[in-house]
């Protein structure tokens, strides 16, 4: 089993993601540089957080056009798993691998803090070890996490159970007060229609060791492992 963590110029959670995946899964992890495109040897590709290309122009916009994204597209088209975290989610949206768009946080400020999210869909390859309604405590750290999609797109997301996580309070209630960035319907993470590409704003790699304050992020990496082992 082989994980690839994509390194764009300006990625800054690449090493953290590498560390967490290796630590939680015990599997082989490689860094994949942004100019590589032959990615056939990987079972899972992770687009980590950070400020790819400085997020100049628009978060994720330039990275979406880098060479490695051809390989990521091909990988996804073959039904293999792609996980985009934070900036990775923004890149997947910019690349058209996930629907919708990211706006600047409603506060117009960067937000870094622990939040609660509710698991809405426990049948994805990324969440199969969880259960719907489960509350996870993970950190966010972003300036553009204010997810938007038009009403037709939202209906489709809901109909296909593509909304995987919503921001909620500590008791699991999805409220405006629990929404850290103004995201539509408190959306914190979605999958593509096929279910093999997940984008999420919270950082599971920052919450995979007790000493960092939460181990809830392990659920994502362990679910991926389980999915691959079953397959």
């Amino acid at each position: 089993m082989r994980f690839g963590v994509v390194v764009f110029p300006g990625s800054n959670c690449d090493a953290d993601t590498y560390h967490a995946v290796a630590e939680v899964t015990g599997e082989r992890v490689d860094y994949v540089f942004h100019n590589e495109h032959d990615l056939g040897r990987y079972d899972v590709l992770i687009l980590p957080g950070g400020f790819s290309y400085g997020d100049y122009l628009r978060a994720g916009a330039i990275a979406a056009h880098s060479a490695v994204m051809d390989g990521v597209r091909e990988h996804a088209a073959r039904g293999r798993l792609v996980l985009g975290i934070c900036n990775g989610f923004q890149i997947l949206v910019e690349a058209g691998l996930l629907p919708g768009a990211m706006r600047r946080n409603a506060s117009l400020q960067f937000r870094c803090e622990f939040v609660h999210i509710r698991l809405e869909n426990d049948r994805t390859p990324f969440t199969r070890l969880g259960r719907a309604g489960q509350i996870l405590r993970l950190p966010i750290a972003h300036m553009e996490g204010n997810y938007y999609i038009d009403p037709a797109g939202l209906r489709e997301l809901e109909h296909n159970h593509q909304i995987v996580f919503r921001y909620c309070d500590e008791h699991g209630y999805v409220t405006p007060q629990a929404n850290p960035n103004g995201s539509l319907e408190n959306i914190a993470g979605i999958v593509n229609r096929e279910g093999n590409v997940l984008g999420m704003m919270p950082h599971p790699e920052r919450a995979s060791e007790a000493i960092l304050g939460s181990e809830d992020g392990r659920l994502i990496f362990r679910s991926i492992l389980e999915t691959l082992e079953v397959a």
Partner: protein
Amino acid sequence: MAPEPDEAQPKTPAWLALGLTHSEYNRIVELLGREPNQTELGIFSVLWSEHCGYKHSRPHLGLLPTEGDRVIQGPGENAGLLDIGDGWAVALRIETHNHPSAIEPYQGAATGVGGIIRDILAMGARPVALMDALYLGPVEDQKSRYLAGGIVAGIAGYGNCVGVPTVGGETKFSPAYVRNPLVNVMCVGLVRRDRVVRARAEGPGNAVMLVGSPTGRDGIHGAGLLASKVFVATSAGDDGDSGGHGNGAARSPESLRPAVQVADPFMEKLVIEACLEALETGHVVAMQDLGAAGLSSSTSEVASRAGTGIEIDLSLVPRREENMTPFELMLSETQERMLLIVETGHEEAVRSVFRRWEVPATVIGRVTSDGHLRVRNGDDVVADIPVAALTHDVPVYTVEQREPAEQAYLRAFDPHELADVDAETAGTVLLDLLRSPNLASKRTIWRQYDHMVQINTVVGPGADAALLRVKGTSLGVAITTDGNGRYCYLDPYDGVRHLVAEAARNLVCTGAEPIGITDSLNFGDPDRPEVAWQFRLTVEGMAEACRELGIPVTGGNVSFYNETNGESIYPTPVVGMVGVMENVLARTTPGFKEPGELVILLGPCRGELGGSEYLEAVHGKVAGRLPPIDLKLEKRVQDCALTAIRSGIVNSAHDCAEGGLAVALAECCLLGSPGARGVRVEFQTAGLSLPAGTTRPADATAPAESWRLDELLFGEAPSRIILTIYEQDLEAFARLARTHRVPWKVIGKVQDRDFQLILDGQVILDVPTGDMERAWQSGLASVFGTAEPEAGL
């Protein structure tokens, strides 16, 4: 601002416009044996500036103790280095970006972050944490709010993008900083002991490689102009005073904006990765940050440290603007650049690493053995200066010192002439204090900072100190920055002793042993006798405190000319301190953990009002005598707390500092775990007499009946720590306290919620935790809670 040759302005000699004096010019002529040309004059002007040359501070700084078992590198390099064990070293350094931030807060603060990160990088260390210590004008002042918002946004914009977590710091407000905010940024790095590099241009023939951003006209002469009298004169003009007198250099603050650099954190991130990877090739001899004074200082400093010379060719320097003159190229402060000394013959191996990261890397010259900085522009030699003249022959000034006239008046103030609080008012006063800008929660600031990236943050912002783990080891590294300008204004000597003690206490409260300091000394115009007096006493006091507590200084920063309208800021030394703990899992944090825990006050019970936060926030007074500080007692208290924490019997620990006992206890509640966010404290007046062994002067020991309630609740005193333990560990704790000969007292018990304080059976405080939470969280919400203008990201 691009100074032109002096022919254009015959009335003002070129050296004056560059901030040099007549006698300094004469000295330059003497050292060179000829008249300098314009480029050479420019190079001298920046290296002999206060910022680079430490002209007023050098004679005093030698007092600071700089040696210790753990010191691998003391002052003199880009950063200090401390041994933390297991083959690891910590790099630490603090710097100010006060003047740039006063002119252009976002870019000024952002480039401050970038510069200090490169100082750490230059040691071969990976930058792993930032701390920012901000001293800002009052929140009621609109300009101060604008500056505050821009500064915080700049730190966030840079730190978040570059991927170095901002794990803490402090923010204080005072009218003393109204037009001159202080932006002190500290960076900490980690490096394997055997991988340390130093910024020494060893090996004549080795290549001088310039990496990073192409050079532009940004920030030309920033170090020379911004940290100088020119800046003071300019800022004074800000309020409509006639600013056009003096040496003709006074301008509107906006006119100095081109002297502020523009930040590109994305490039910095690439520079960090590429430099660390380049070190792996084994062919990089030395690294040096290009910060203040750009190429001029970086080339002469690396040569100076190695006793070599350097020859560079400016025509090879990649640039982002056309027609740049040698003067501009040598003085440009374009950010995100590093100078590397690379083994001759291996240039390509190093260059290929930078190519992979798409970072420009160009060989611009060679190390020589003749001790000269020789600058060519193609075939022309445009500057040729003995390196020692730039770095060793910097003039040093000692200025007459005089105690400020108001000092005696400030000391004479007796807080006892003010009305005391009582059971009716104490609760309201506590809430007012929790709401006051200096004591309110800083969450609205630090949640704008990525404080978790690199996944080492075990304790983040909001505690006494931040704590990082070192992956692959059991080690923890604790970091704090502290400043107490008001104390130092009232009494520079004792103020800084309080400061060093408090910083160490903050580290101890996380369970870490303090091991080293990087200091940042923020002062007014050093030519004023009052400022010279403050500066000398500050350094002397710091030296004494460091010696008593056994904590060496590994280097730092001096920032003078912090004044507006002829008024100095408070003398504001800032201490960045690092501690180490062998088992990071044994950490403690300030919040109460479980109901029923015993609350212990370690150290003397009673505080004093002189210079206190309470006096300023509630009574509008900045005056009085500081509480006495006994560094020997302080050391015993810290040792006792550390031993107790290491023995595993301490559940929580919090420094009892600004706002006194009541505020510290409130903070323990507010930071408490669910179900442990309250406390019930009981005192008997009789029990409040000072325990034997405290060193309060006998004549000041007032009889119990004359005690004031506000002294008990809000008075401040050093050497105090609030601990919680389980009842079953009381005996063990008592033994430890006896061994260390420190006063202590069980003062109450943790409960689910609400803060009650009972004195002689009478309820003095009964404040719901919810009320405290609202006050504490709302204090700064209106300042930092709303959207601030963004730039660049």
